[in-house]
């Protein structure tokens, strides 16, 4: 591939500060938030308009140059790791909130807007944007849409998909597709927007997003339950769901994770219990008070050593913020942290958690587990050292077994991080030959030359 000619062509419409080519720049865009994956691009493009993106794609499509879109590079499955020698298309400069339409309860944004900024803008208007991935403070909404990101509130409020009403997408050949709008109902043709949600940058480059907002809940209460056994915590979750209570958050941390989070946040989390449940209910004050009392009673019956109500909003926020750092905090214990994202039907949670612990012991790998108990989404995190090849081989084995078991239980290899490069080998087992074939046909329909994030998700 002739990089010099490509860069020279891109330079006709991108300024030098929008087209980075030095070794230094290419090496800092060679990775995302995923462990172990590095691929150096030939250049990094920082477009500031849809037109520039369109021009860039026309050029790369003609030349057959791979393009991998990314936002802040916080992906956890390698979906935004650039192709070796390709273009890293960084969308962070498209960072304007275009419109907050209170009459229609929507917000229209560019893809580089940070998720937190959307949450803040909604809150300032008395509205609520619920999806809150762990990296909310830095993740971009474009990345959230491309990965259909979840978060701590999936149980009650769903995930990013449930809030995307419309998209503007630049296709691989440079054409601009608009799909969806501000209408609640719209059945004119296939719902193409849904194809781009979770597409991991393989079908097009999202340049504008219309998101649904909901009224902000009038009140909320946060409870913290401490357990001496993980199974007691899992049983509490099952009992809450069985009583037809849908909290907005039901998070858990195991002992290893609690210790790390406390070391970072220093907010007084107990480090001598085996599991912590973080539970939040929101809605009408009367209902919230009733549900909080019910949950407290269920947790006590379920064997909680103690159940405590957060004293203030500030404390509740502190707890949620601390929980969001769990993954990164685990890096305190080991140089390499390999994070997984298996999800199982909620009825299988206790079995899955026990299995993860058993696998860790069998392969002598240290595992910290945390996640979204309420929606069955677990994050077993393998603590290892990438320089120890023997240990890494054991981690590989343990991971494969965890994936297989999740699928056996009727679950999925990834609940919210995506397939990317990291889970690509496990996708055929999850989807089967027909499912995989259809994915490939969809890909070909949108991107016949295969320039968008090639080699991601499947070959």
């Amino acid at each position, binding site marked *: 591939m002739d990089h010099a000619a490509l860069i020279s062509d891109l330079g006709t419409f991108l300024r030098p500060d929008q087209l*980075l080519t*030095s*070794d*230094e*720049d290419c*090496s*800092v*865009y*060679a*990775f*995302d*938030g995923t*462990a172990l994956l590095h691929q150096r691009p030939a250049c*990094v493009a*920082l477009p500031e308009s849809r037109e520039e993106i369109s021009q860039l794609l026309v050029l790369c499509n003609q030349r057959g140059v791979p393009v991998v879109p990314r936002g*802040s*590079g*916080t992906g956890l499955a390698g979906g935004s790791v650039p192709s070796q020698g390709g273009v890293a298309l*960084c969308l*962070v*400069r498209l*960072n304007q909130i275009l419109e907050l339409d209170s009459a229609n309860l929507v917000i229209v944004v560019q893809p580089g807007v*940070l998720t*937190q900024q959307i949450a803040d803008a909604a809150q300032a208007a008395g509205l609520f944007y619920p999806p809150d991935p762990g*990296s909310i*403070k*830095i993740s971009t909404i474009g990345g959230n849409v491309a990965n259909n990101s979840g978060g701590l509130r999936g149980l009650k409020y769903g995930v990013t998909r449930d809030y995307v009403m419309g998209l503007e997408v630049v296709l691989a050949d440079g054409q601009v597709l608009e799909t969806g709008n501000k209408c609640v109902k719209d059945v004119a043709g296939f719902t193409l927007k849904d194809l781009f949600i979770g597409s991991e940058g393989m079908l097009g480059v999202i340049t504008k997003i219309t998101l649904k907002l909901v009224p902000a809940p009038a009140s909320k209460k946060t409870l913290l339950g401490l357990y001496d056994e993980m199974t007691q915590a899992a049983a509490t979750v099952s009992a809450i769901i069985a009583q037809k209570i849908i909290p907005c958050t039901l998070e858990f941390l195991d002992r290893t994770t609690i210790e*790390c*989070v406390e*070391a*970072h946040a220093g907010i007084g989390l107990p480090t001598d219990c085996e599991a912590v449940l973080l539970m939040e209910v929101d809605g009408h004050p009367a209902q919230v008070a009733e549900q909080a009392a019910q949950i407290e009673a269920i947790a006590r019956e379920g064997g909680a050593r103690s159940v405590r109500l957060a004293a203030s909003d500030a404390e509740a926020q502190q707890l949620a913020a601390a929980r969001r*750092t*769990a*993954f*990164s*905090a685990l*890096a*305190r214990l080991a*140089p*390499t*942290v390999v994070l997984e994202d298996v999800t199982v039907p909620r009825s299988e949670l206790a079995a899955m958690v026990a299995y993860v612990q058993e696998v860790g012991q069998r392969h002598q790998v240290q595992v910290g587990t945390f996640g979204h108990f309420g929606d069955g989404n677990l994050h077993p995190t393998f603590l290892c*050292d990438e320089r120890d090849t023997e240990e890494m081989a054991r981690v590989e084995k343990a991971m494969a077994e965890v994936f297989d078991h999740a699928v056996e239980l009727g679950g999925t290899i990834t609940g919210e991080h995506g397939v990317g490069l990291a889970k690509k080998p496990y996708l055929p087992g999850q989807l089967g030959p027909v499912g995989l074939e259809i994915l490939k046909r969809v890909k070909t329909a949108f991107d016949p030359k295969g320039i968008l994030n090639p080699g991601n998700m499947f070959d």
Partner: protein
Amino acid sequence: MSDDGLNLLRDLDYSILQQCMHCGMCLPTCPTYDATLNERSSPRGRIALMRAIADGELEAGVTFAEEMYFCLGCLACQTACPAGVDYAALFESARAEVERQGLLDGTVRNFVRRWILGWLFAKQTRLRAVARLLRAFQRSGLQTLARHSGLLRLLPFGLGNLEPLAPQISPRFTDQLYRRDLQQANPPAPRYRVALLAGCVQDISFAEVNADTICVLQHNGCQVLLPDGQACCGSLHAHNGAVEQAQQQARLNIDAFDTENLDAIVVNAGGCGLHCKHYDRLLADDPAYAKRAAVWSAKVKDVHEWLADIGLRQPRAAMPPQQVAYHESCHLKHGQRASAAPREVLQAVPNLQLVPLAEADWCCGSAGIYNITQPELSMQLLDRKMAHVCATGATAVATGNTGCAIQLQYGVRRAQAAVDVIHPVSLLAAAYRAENQGGTQCSTLA
């Protein structure tokens, strides 16, 4: 890579580099990433560059060197980092490697570095001598003349642009104030025996802050010593890649202080305090000093932290009402993790209302000598800070670091704002003095 096969980044404990798992949580807290949206100018990007150099995948060149000096070293990333990456250690090693390889060498730069780091700040007697000359200049009316006449523009190397940043020189330096007024005000039966690190610029330009610090400590049962022979703590040197000179400054101070017989070494500048707490690391490989440095580091306390530790006595005087905003020194907040203690000091002042300051812990752009080396971004950050300060309506902004104070004073002049820049301890000292009118303890300063 340099041909001698050495590489300070490679010699560094690799686990510190590896600790970064590039999650990106640091990015939104980094002022240089915020300004550029360029990954290279983020903590995660900088660590990736250091690691690539340590791994031999990238050669340290001018781009790397400039990036390391574009970093403010504010350490906001350390507070944000869930993984606990020791960015300060990485940053100092990276700058040291830049200097070792001479990546930014130039006649002017080398000359300025040699004279400022190697000579002027090496001995406090030299800095005081220069400060006396500067004080004469400031008092003579020549300063006003020079400012109005445009003569400053004629100075070489753009030095004229620095003049507005230069702080006023104090009428008396710390040791003069101490001997004249303060030494005899030490409590007769002290609960603690502490020594003050008077600092370098603090000593010549904010001597009254040192006096106020001594006064506050004395009012809280401390006998305060001011050891002779102390010098600049060396943070200026360490943050600018001059490790050996930084080690020399540390040795000077360790020799000057009778550390074994002190309860604390009190520092009232956030940046200096953080650096002093790291003497143990700085001298870990020095057999003659490693042990003493460890004892030293364990005893270094930021003044607010120390007051919180020993239990601050509430002043009894009735004070006039005042609204004060608190700007957090980066190295106090992110380096020393002291955020509540300075606010406790302020709230102990009777009738003082602490008003919330937006982005209180966002760097003001001072960052050691960043306002000299990177004036453009430094002034952007200062304007942002001043906009927030002015929006509070406070009559004073308090801050616990010399560099911040100088920068904010300049910001006040730039913004033509009616805001005092003051050290929290000075506000507290005023309250103690008010209750003690006519008493013997730390009388009003002339």
